[in-house]
C-alpha cells in the first residue's frame, strides 16, 4: 500500500467537502444551524428567569394550621415565586436534586404556635415560641442562593406583621443546606442525540459521491491507474472519518455554546468522540450500500433516506419521544446505541466501565464494522473499485 496515493485521494475528498456548497451545507452548516435552533428554542439561551420555583413542605402541627396555610397563600401571591406544595420532605428533596425546583422550604411543626406567641406579645420576646423555617437551596444556581432567602425573609416579615425587619422575630429563616442540583433542560436531554444526528447525513454524502464519480467516469479513470482497491477504500474511509470528527467537534462546540455542559471529565469526551467516529463507519457502509443499488447520484440522494430516516427517528433524540414499540424497533439501528451510551455518560452519570456503556460500545463496534464490510463487499462486487 502506498501512502502517497491514500493521502492524495483523502485530500481530494476533503477538498470536495468544503468546496461544494451543497456538501458543505449538509455536512457542516446544517448540524450547526440545527443545534442553534434547538438550543435557542429549548435550551438555556431560551430566555431569562420569570419566577423562582420553590417547593413548600408544611410540617406545622400547631393548634391553628390555617396560619401556616395562610403563609403559603401569601407566598403564592408573590409573583416572583412559583410555589409547589409537597406532603413530605423526601419528595421535595428529590425534586430539588433533579433540578425541577430551585429551593425547598420546610415550615416547622411549631410555626403557628410561634406566630400566635408573637401576635399575643409582640414586644415581649420572653413569651415567644421560637421556630425556624428551613431552606434547602440549589447550590449551582446563583439565583437560588442569592435571591430566594431574602425574598422569603421579606414575605415572612410582612406576614408576621413586622413593620421593621430589624426587630427580632420568633420565626427565623435558616439555610439548612445547599444541594448539588443537576438541572436537565429539554435541550440537555436532546444534546447526546445531536452528536449522532449530524453523522447520519454522511450516508447521503458517501452515496452521492460514489455514484457521481461513477457517472462522470472518475471511478473508471482511477481504476486505470495503479491504485489498488484497498488504497482507494482506505482513503475514502479516512476522509469521511475526518469529516465526521469535524462534524462532532462543531456539534460539541455548538451544544456547549447553547448551554449543554455536562459535568464529566475529558476522558468521557474522548470516549464520546471515539464512539461517534465508530458510528461514522456504519454510515459510510450504508452510503456504499446506497451507492450500490442506485443507478444515478440523484437516485442515491433519495434512496439514502431508506437508511437515514430509521437511524434518525429510531436512534437519536427523536426516539425518546416515540411509542414503546418504536423504541424497541430502535434497538435495531446503530444510532440507538450511540445515543444511549452518550446519554448514560453525559446525563445519567454512568462511568466508562459501566455495563450499559460497555454494552453500547460493543453493539456500536460490531454493527458498524459489519455494516462497513457489507458496504465495501457489495460495492466492489457490483461496481469494480
Amino acid at each position, binding site marked *: 500500500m502506498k501512502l502517497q496515493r491514500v493521502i492524495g485521494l483523502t485530500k*481530494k475528498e476533503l477538498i470536495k467537502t468544503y468546496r461544494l456548497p451543497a456538501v458543505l451545507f449538509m455536512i457542516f452548516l446544517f448540524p450547526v444551524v440545527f443545534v442553534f435552533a434547538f438550543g435557542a428554542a429549548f435550551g438555556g439561551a431560551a430566555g431569562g428567569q420569570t419566577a423562582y420555583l420553590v417547593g413548600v413542605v408544611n410540617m406545622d402541627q400547631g393548634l391553628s394550621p390555617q396560619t401556616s396555610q395562610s403563609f403559603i397563600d401569601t407566598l403564592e401571591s408573590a409573583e416572583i415565586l412559583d410555589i409547589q406544595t409537597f406532603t413530605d420532605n423526601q419528595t421535595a428533596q428529590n425534586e430539588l436534586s433533579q433540578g425541577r425546583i430551585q429551593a425547598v422550604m420546610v415550615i416547622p411543626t411549631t410555626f403557628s404556635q410561634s406566630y400566635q406567641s408573637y401576635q399575643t406579645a409582640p414586644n415581649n420576646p420572653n413569651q415567644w415560641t421560637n421556630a425556624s423555617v428551613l431552606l434547602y437551596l440549589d447550590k449551582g444556581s446563583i439565583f437560588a442562593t442569592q435571591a430566594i432567602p431574602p425574598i422569603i425573609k421579606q414575605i415572612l416579615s410582612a406576614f408576621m406583621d413586622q413593620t421593621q425587619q430589624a426587630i427580632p422575630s420568633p420565626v427565623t429563616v435558616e439555610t439548612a443546606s445547599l444541594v448539588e442540583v443537576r438541572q436537565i433542560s429539554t435541550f440537555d436531554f436532546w444534546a447526546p442525540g445531536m452528536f449522532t444526528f449530524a453523522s447520519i447525513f454522511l450516508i447521503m454524502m458517501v452515496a452521492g459521491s460514489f455514484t457521481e464519480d461513477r457517472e462522470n*467516469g472518475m471511478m473508471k479513470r482511477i481504476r*486505470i491507474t495503479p491504485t489498488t482497491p484497498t488504497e482507494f477504500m482506505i482513503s475514502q474511509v479516512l476522509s469521511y472519518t475526518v469529516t465526521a470528527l469535524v462534524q462532532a467537534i462543531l456539534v460539541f462546540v455548538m451544544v456547549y455554546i447553547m448551554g449543554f455542559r455536562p459535568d464529566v471529565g475529558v476522558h468521557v469526551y474522548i470516549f464520546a468522540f471515539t464512539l461517534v467516529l465508530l458510528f461514522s463507519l456504519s454510515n459510510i457502509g450504508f452510503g456504499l450500500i446506497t451507492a450500490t443499488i442506485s443507478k444515478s447520484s440523484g437516485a442515491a440522494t433519495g434512496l439514502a433516506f431508506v437508511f437515514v430516516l430509521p437511524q434518525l427517528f429510531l436512534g437519536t433524540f427523536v426516539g425518546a419521544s416515540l411509542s414503546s414499540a418504536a423504541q424497541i424497533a430502535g434497538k435495531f439501528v446503530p444510532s440507538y446505541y450511540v445515543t444511549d451510551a452518550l446519554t448514560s455518560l453525559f446525563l445519567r452519570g454512568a462511568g466508562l466501565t459501566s455495563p450499559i456503556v460497555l454494552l453500547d460500545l460493543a453493539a456500536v463496534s460490531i454493527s458498524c464494522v459489519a455494516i462497513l464490510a457489507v458496504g465495501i463487499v457489495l460495492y466492489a462486487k457490483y461496481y469494480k473499485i
Partner: protein
Amino acid sequence: MKTPAISIENLVKKFEDVTAVDGVNLQVEEGELFGLIGPNGAGKTTIINVLCGLIPPTSGSCRVGGFDVQKQKSKVKDIIGVCPQETAIYPYLTGSENVELFGNLYIMNKQTLETRRAMLFEKTGLTHDAKRRAEKYSGGMKRRLSLVLSLINDPRIAFLDEPTVTMDPQSRHAVWEFIKELKTQNKTIILTTHYMEEAEELCDRVGIIDHGKLIALGSPNELISNNNAKNLEEVFIKLTGRRIREEV
C-alpha cells in the same frame, strides 16, 4: 524479434447477446501511432477498455507492453496512460490539483511531477488557467486537461479515446501538434476517432472497425490507394456502404 507494444489475438467481447468485438487480431509496434476508426458503437472503446484491463475479454488474449492484460494487470497499469472518451476530471479541483492527484496515484516525486505538469500545461495551453477550478473551464479546456491527466506519468503506451471530440478547430489542431510531438518521443499511441481527417493527419496505420470487426488495416495512404478513394471517409463508404458519421 522485437516485442510488439500491443498484441491482440482473436479478441471477442460480448455484452449479454450483443457482440461488441468480434474476433479482432491486431499488432501495434513500439513507437507507432495507430488509429482505430469507425462509427459510434463500432467497438473501438470496448477494445481500449479490454486493453486497459477495465473489462475482461469474453475470449482471446491481449498483451500490452509485453504483459498479459488479465494476468499482469498492475504491470500494464504502470506503463499506460488513458484519456477516456468522457471528460473525466474532478470539477471542484483546480487544473493543477487534478494533475497533482494523478501524479500522486502514479507515485511521482514532487520535482518530476512539477516539471511534467508545467511542460504539459504549456503544450496544451493551460498554464494561465492552472489555478482555476476545472468546473470553470470551457469544454475544450476540460478535454485538454483530461489529456494532460492521461500523460502525466509519461506512459510508454497512451490510449487516446476520441481526444478531440467537442473541441473547436483551433484546439483540435493544437492537440494534433501535441500528439505528433509525442510520436517523436517514441511513444506508442492508440488513437480512436471518428474524424477521418484526424486519422489521415496523424496515424501511421489505421484499423477500420465496424460492428465489432476489423474490416481494414493499413496506412491511410495504402487504404486510400487500395480502395481507389480520395480519402478515408470514402474508404469507409466503399467498405461499408454508409458514411462513418451517419450514426453519430
